[in-house]
């Protein structure tokens, strides 16, 4: 600082440029490293209550208290070579799935809110979504398996069995169907699947789910706004209000 006055203007600007260049190049390399890691997030199956990935990644302090709290040793912290953002909690359903504790100790342990404490009912968690590979699913080959259906902790809602009749010489297929509105992504089905590689797998919903789009109006389902409008006689109604006139045929009947 004392020799500041002896530095020429030219030297001063050179120094400033050198400092800025060092910070900028360092910052760029650093941010590439961060981006590279963040890119791996779609492959992590997170603990219950984990927020939307960018929010989760920002909040998680990588302390492992959820791992400590998990009574089944389901959760792990990503090591440097796990291919998942370093130090964050995840689980591999085929090894140890989430057994869906009703008191959700992992959320209680999380100090930052990366696991959202607003989740009080474990059935509301969305750790992932089970997806069936129908080419390798035993049930889809016509065998009576349905193990995933029977193991599912949200049986009858997250996984149902559909009956597909076939030609006379073959018996009907009883195939499992996953429903995203109820599947918690616990992975118990993936753990239980008897095929060599699991034919039902839990993935992050973003990787597998499409979106139908608002411009499709499915007139044959009873609860879409267009149907209500139609049944109400063409008048535009508040889509949340009960459809008018549904019961008109029964009116006056004893």
């Amino acid at each position, binding site marked *: 600082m004392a020799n500041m006055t002896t530095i020429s203007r030219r030297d001063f600007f050179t120094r400033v440029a050198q400092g800025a260049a060092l910070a900028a190049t360092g910052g760029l390399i650093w941010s590439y490293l*961060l981006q590279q890691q963040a890119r791996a997030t779609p492959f992590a199956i997170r603990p219950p209550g984990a927020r939307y990935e960018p929010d989760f990644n920002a909040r998680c302090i990588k302390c492992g208290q959820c791992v400590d709290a998990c009574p089944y040793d389901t959760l792990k912290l990503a090591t440097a070579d796990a291919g998942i953002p370093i130090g964050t909690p995840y689980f591999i359903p085929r090894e140890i799935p989430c057994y869906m504790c009703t008191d959700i100790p992992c959320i209680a342990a999380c100090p930052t809110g990366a696991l959202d404490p607003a989740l009080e009912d474990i059935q509301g968690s969305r750790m992932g979504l089970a997806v069936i590979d129908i080419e390798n699913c035993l049930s889809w080959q016509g065998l009576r398996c349905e193990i995933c259906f029977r193991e599912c902790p949200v049986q009858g809602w997250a996984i149902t069995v559909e009956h597909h009749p076939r030609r006379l010489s073959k018996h009907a297929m009883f195939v499992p169907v996953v429903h995203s509105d109820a599947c918690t992504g616990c992975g118990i089905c993936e753990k239980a699947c008897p095929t060599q590689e699991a034919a039902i797998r839990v993935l992050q919903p973003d990787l597998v789910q499409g979106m139908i789009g608002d411009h499709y109006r499915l007139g044959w389902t009873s609860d879409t706004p267009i149907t209500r409008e139609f049944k109400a006689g063409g008048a535009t109604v508040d889509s949340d209000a009960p459809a008018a006139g549904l019961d008109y045929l029964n009116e006056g009947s004893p």
Partner: protein
Amino acid sequence: MSTPRDTVKTGPNGRPVRPFVMPASLPGKLRVWRYLLLRRAVQLGLLLLFLGTVRWGWEVAGRPLLSGNLSASELLGTIPMADPFAVLQIILTRHLPQPEVLTGAGIILLIYLILGGRSWCAWVCPINMVTDLAAWLRRRLGISDLFRLSRNIRYTVLALALALSALTGIAAFEWISPISMLHRELIFGIGLGWTAVLGVFLFDLFILRNGWCGHLCPLGAFYALVGKLAQVRIRFDTPTCTHCGECARVCPEPQVMNLKAASATGMIASGECTNCGRCITICPEDTLQFDLRHFINTRQKTDSTESRQRRAA
């Protein structure tokens, strides 16, 4: 150095300059190593408490002893603790964490405001053992620096960590920190995190003396800023000092051993001092001792008024 061996060099206080001599006896050696041994005990002890709680379920009165790691933890299931620098990065990503971790960060900040900011570095940080080993080997092998780097660059790295957290929405240092990698993988399972630690070790051993802890680490820079206000400091008794220079030779942050500033303030005031205690045990004159900033300041004040009165009389 240029003085012939037979003439006795004297310090500014008129006393002869004595070099530090390592005692031959084991108790004498242990006395010299007392802070080193204590630091290792604290570093390894904390690691063991974390490890015992997660691996072997250590409990006290049915509560987990020390759950988590140095990023965030909970003592006996009640007292939260958190790395204030990590929490600051999270806040900069525009996510307000839960009160629990904010309280924890406040508690740790308070602890280091008392114990002296970079006490974290010398007494708790697990990387310290790695870089101390590198520094020791380096001295033994007589390896010289590959290049020079300003020790202030750590404050640029600190600023970058905060700026990148705000820009990328990710706690920038927490995602690449070799400190957390080492600590986490020791507690929660070994992966390739040791490669980052190896990188720090090789950098410190072959490229730059005290390269990581003394030049680059933004967490150390953060705690250096905390240390500017911290209470536990190393007291400096000007009259006993012979300017032998042993302290500056053993200090991992030799720039803090500015004897002129030290006699003016009565202590090693720089926040970059890690309170490792090396200078205390090596000083042949017992000039340096742990003390509290508050007491040092009051003593310094009374000393200066006394000398003024003496001069006036």
